[in-house]
């Protein structure tokens, strides 16, 4: 009884044209079913990226790591004065491959292969998801996305001709899923020969704390450093160790380049193009007359009857005047 009452009160949902059309289809092969039922995928959203120079927007962990490297090298630019010379501090990512470390990275080694100081090392130690900023609701069906507009399309140029003809250029949009917001932890080590050199580098890095690290032409992320630990040790049979370690906390986001995202999310769409038909009138009915086909030399020319009508009218006028 309740079910009937519920179905009675339910608001009817009209069928779409597609549903109505498919209802009339009697499939030839009952096992395969109606070939028009291909699911809910909207092929209008599948636009080709051929000749499109815009790379589908992705931002990976490596991009974030590179932003730290960029900021150390190009913004902080740590240096020390050693033996009367200004030496830029090399920055490396921690624990490189052996061949790269020992053979390729010769610029911070002496001829015996011993690592010279100063040197800065950083490496990512942790990546933690932040759940209180954004949510794409369902990774397999990301319905929540932001939109980038392509600023210029060479195939759809907007010049004086388009202005004169009142043409509005078609805009291309690139929807991008809501990113995964993450907090990344980096462990950094500064190693120098002397504490006096170390102090200078710590001062420079500490000054850059709580700012946005990264390449301004690419991505920038809020970075934070809370404390610096200083280690100054003498070990038997080894050189004196002067180094400082600190943790760098960076607020980042990730837009992965996964096939799951590419399959489910809309990658590109354009705004709706419009063709506007307007009404014009004429008092000369001859413009609607059928044209005549003439052959002049090797060319076939369609002579519009309206043109011939106008010529006749002009001849009549000239005769009258004459």
């Amino acid at each position, binding site marked *: 009884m309740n079910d009937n009452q519920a179905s009675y009160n339910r608001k009817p949902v009209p069928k779409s044209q597609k549903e109505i059309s498919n209802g009339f289809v009697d499939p030839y092969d009952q096992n395969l079913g109606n070939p028009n039922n291909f699911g809910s995928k909207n092929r209008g959203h599948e636009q080709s990226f051929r000749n499109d120079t815009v790379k589908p927007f992705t931002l990976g962990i490596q991009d974030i790591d590179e932003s730290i490297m960029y900021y150390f090298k190009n913004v902080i630019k740590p240096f020390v004065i050693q*033996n*009367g010379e200004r030496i830029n501090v090399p920055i490396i990512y921690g624990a490189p491959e052996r061949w790269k470390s*020992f053979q390729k990275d010769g610029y911070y080694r002496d*001829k015996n292969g*011993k690592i010279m100081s100063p040197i800065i090392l950083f490496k990512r130690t942790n990546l933690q998801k932040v759940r209180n900023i954004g949510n794409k609701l369902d990774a397999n069906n990301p319905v929540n996305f932001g939109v980038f507009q392509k600023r210029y399309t060479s195939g759809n140029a907007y010049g004086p001709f388009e202005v004169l003809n009142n043409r509005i250029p078609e805009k291309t949009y690139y929807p991008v899923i809501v990113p995964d917001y993450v907090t990344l932890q980096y462990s950094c080590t500064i190693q120098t020969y*002397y504490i*006096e050199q170390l102090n200078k580098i710590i001062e420079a890095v500490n000054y850059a704390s709580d700012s946005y690290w990264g390449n301004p032409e690419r991505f920038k992320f809020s970075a934070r450093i809370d404390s610096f630990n200083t280690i100054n040790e003498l070990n038997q049979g080894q050189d004196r160790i002067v180094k400082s370690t600190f943790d760098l906390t960076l607020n980042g986001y990730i837009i992965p380049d996964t096939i799951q995202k590419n399959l489910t999310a809309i990658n590109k769409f354009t705004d709706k193009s419009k063709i506007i038909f307007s009404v014009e009138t004429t008092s000369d009915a001859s413009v609607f007359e059928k044209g005549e086909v003439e052959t002049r030399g090797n060319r076939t020319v369609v002579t519009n009857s309206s043109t011939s009508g106008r010529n006749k009218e002009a001849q009549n006028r000239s005769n009258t005047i004459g």
Partner: protein
Amino acid sequence: MCALFGGSRDVSLFRGLSRELVGDIISQQAAIYKPQLAETKVNIYGETPGTRYFDEPVLLNCLISRDDQAYPESDLGIDFNWGVEFRFLRDDLIDANVLIEIGDIVLYQESYYEVNSTVSNQYVVGKNPDYPNAENPLENDLDQFGSNFSVIVKTHIIPADKLGISPKKERF
């Protein structure tokens, strides 16, 4: 009762043989750099980030015992470490007026080694002439016997540019 061996003639023989062996036959050499304490400025941390001054190096014959090269691995990558032991005749050091101490620098094969420790306990017939053996009531001429024969210096390699003795050459 008196000592029979290890007298000055014996010590002289040992010294002569050793000098010939180390200097003319084995012929290994190392240079000693001693820091100029008065000239070199030190900061509050007990270090010299500025210019470090050294006396002129002294080239000496020695026996050299090398550890295996070590390549410790850390986050920085593959590092390099090499411990080398230098054995000097103490009489050579006395003649050159050099007292090797911890922190001195030894130049060997165009690399620099910092002195970790100095060992000076090779006594001929177990007697150190610096000790007041003459005050022994049973043997009052013991100070004529024995010899403190060698100075063994243990070192570790240090990064070449740290000293700044010849930085361009050391780096490349």
